């Protein structure tokens, strides 16, 4: 089944699922209240903050190669190794070498979307490695055998009851309705994995060029454990994560926190300059930073689409999107869901298979208005559609309809001549179409405005 067919099938199922809608929209309502408060509590001028953040990211993208080299040179000085992966395959190869070198059989992982993107979990499990997600939401998704539902809140689609049942089955706890008890159970379950793991894998929210440091923000403290307890720390990061200066964090940390969850600042913010230094007692002995391209340089090379690499993965566009709120995260079949997913997935994974996502938008623009780095998402989706037509992906029927439409629109006489036929078709000819499409076909009025005007004057 093609990606498009799967999307339409899933989307149709979810569109009719009222309890899904209620659950997701309740969570998103709470999110929006928090964000509104967060924006006004932290920023005197939220719009100005967005503008500055967009400028900094844009500048960084213009000097992307230079900044990445600067980052590499600086973090190497502090003893970390930097590996450059052109795609997921290469990144997984690096990861596997590190596992082999360390004879690691057990590893812990913090929440990172780029690991999802390169299918790290499936790969390592296929190699016989025991890998545990340590972020609570990610652990829930892992135990359920699913993929993240949302780039920030991966288990947003699970109710307390569902999580309780899952934990009863998978980690053998008694039934409970308390979120606190469930969290404690997860902590308890993970504790010895933290202690026994030889390798900790994390992502990075930012790579800082001038400091040669990686930054990770999280709310649970599990990420800090992943990068400090095991002897080896692997960082997976997309190349677009670069920001020029350490001081840029004063804007980007609150910006990400507010847009992601409505918090003024995420609970734990770690800046890591490298592995354990000679004078230090704690920390990993080895640190590897794997810089992953995996299609990003295609976006980088496109002048029009480059701005999509500004994305800081806050998830605000998902929460604002009425399509996401209807179909939910899994329907997309992508690592990155919602508007940003529709924007970047065709570049990361191929136009031919994914061009339907830019079409699956009503172009309402709510995504652009909430984006903290002002990515012009919905206008770029229009550019995608243009490319889909130019690449002949969008189907011959639409091409024919458009040709006919031009003929009708260019000459009033032709339009008026054919009007009775179109009138008849829109009123009596739609029985051939599926009922859900049928209702969306406009029915022509007996007389056009032009006809009425002519009659009166």
């Amino acid at each position: 089944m093609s990606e498009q067919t799967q999307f339409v099938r899933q989307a149709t199922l979810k569109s009719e699922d009222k309890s899904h809608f209620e659950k997701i929209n309740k969570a998103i309502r709470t999110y929006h209240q928090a964000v509104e408060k967060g924006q006004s509590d932290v920023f005197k001028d939220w719009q100005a903050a967005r503008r500055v953040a967009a400028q900094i990211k844009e500048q960084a993208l213009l000097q992307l190669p230079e900044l990445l080299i600067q980052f590499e040179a600086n973090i190497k000085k502090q003893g970390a190794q930097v590996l450059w992966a052109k795609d997921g395959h290469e990144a997984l190869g690096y990861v596997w070498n590190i596992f082999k070198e360390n004879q690691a059989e057990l590893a812990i992982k913090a929440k990172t979307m780029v690991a999802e993107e390169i299918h790290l979990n499936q790969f390592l499990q296929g190699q016989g490695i025991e890998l545990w997600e340590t972020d609570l939401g990610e652990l829930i998704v892992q135990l359920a055998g699913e993929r993240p539902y949302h780039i920030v809140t991966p288990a947003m689609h699970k109710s307390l009851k569902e999580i309780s049942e899952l934990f009863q089955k998978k980690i053998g706890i008694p039934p409970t309705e308390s979120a606190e008890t469930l969290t404690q159970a997860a902590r308890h379950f993970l504790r010895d994995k933290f202690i026994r793991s030889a390798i900790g894998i994390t992502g990075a929210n930012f790579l800082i060029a001038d400091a040669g440091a990686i930054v990770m923000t999280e709310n649970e403290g599990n990420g800090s454990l992943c990068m400090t307890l095991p002897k080896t720390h692997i960082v997976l990061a997309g190349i677009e994560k670069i920001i020029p200066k350490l001081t840029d964090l004063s804007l980007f940390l609150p910006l990400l926190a507010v847009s992601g969850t409505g918090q003024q600042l995420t609970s734990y913010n770690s800046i890591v300059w490298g592995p354990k230094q000679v004078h230090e007692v704690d920390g990993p002995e080895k640190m590897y930073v794997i810089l992953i391209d995996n299609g990003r340089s295609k976006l980088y090379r496109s002048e029009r689409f480059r701005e999509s690499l500004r994305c800081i993965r806050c998830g605000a566009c998902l929460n604002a999107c009425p399509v996401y709120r209807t179909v939910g995260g899994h329907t997309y079949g992508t690592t990155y869901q919602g508007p940003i997913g529709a924007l970047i997935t065709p570049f990361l994974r191929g136009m031919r298979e994914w061009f339907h996502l830019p079409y699956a938008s009503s172009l309402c623009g709510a995504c652009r208005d909430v984006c903290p780095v002002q990515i012009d998402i919905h206008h770029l989706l229009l550019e995608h559609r243009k490319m889909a037509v130019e690449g002949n992906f969008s189907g011959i029927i639409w091409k024919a309809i458009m040709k006919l439409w031009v003929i009708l629109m260019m000459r009033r006489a032709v339009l008026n001549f054919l009007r009775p036929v179109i009138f008849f078709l829109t009123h009596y000819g739609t029985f051939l179409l599926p009922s859900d499409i049928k209702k969306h076909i406009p029915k022509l009025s007996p007389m056009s405005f032009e006809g009425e005007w002519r009659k009166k004057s």
Partner: protein
Amino acid sequence: MESSPVVSLFIPCLVDQVYPEMGIAMTQVLRALGYCVEYDSRQSCCGQPAFNAGHWSEAKTVARHCLQIFQGKEIIVSPSGSCTAMVRKFYQQLFSGEPVSIPAIYEFSEFLCMRGDTAKISGNFSGRVGFHYSCHSYRELRLKQEPFEILRKISGCELIELPGEPICCGFGGLFSIKFPAIAGAMAEARLNQFLEKNIDTIVSNDPGCIMQLRQEVKERRLTLAILHLTEFLSKAMKL
């Protein structure tokens, strides 16, 4: 006596072919407010259906036709935020790099507010009235207060503002045909927001949104009127 200012109508394809009454209502209101209204029957469409679908070369052909017809017109008024946004904003994207001169086109509520005509509006309408923003007028043209400024001039009705950012009705042009299930669920979600407030009349400024919402109302057999702002005014002003 000073001669009445001339306004050229831009009648979107959907109004021309499906909802001529919206165009007629707009003409009546504009005339009642003292404008001389003219209409060029060669006009058809702004080109948005093809533009949104990615068929930019067809869109350009129709857009050029539109530009040619409105060349030199001093003031153009349209009963659609979406078509206005297409001409004013999206033509720049469509013709990127090519020189085009964009005519002075205004969405109906925007035009009345800009001209200070709201003071001349008075009327009566009974019911609980809500307003549905078309996304293009709200987020492309940034019209927020304008429709309400006009609605407030009508007495007898209770005007209810919905909290939070307005959400899309799910029309999105060809989106509703390509993804009818999603579009239908979005319309339902939007309508529910109005129903929760016991609103009985929804006014909007875009024929596309109105079509989408009316379909949903019909399917659910609701007793809820969906009116274009022009229709609402022509009723309230007893034109």
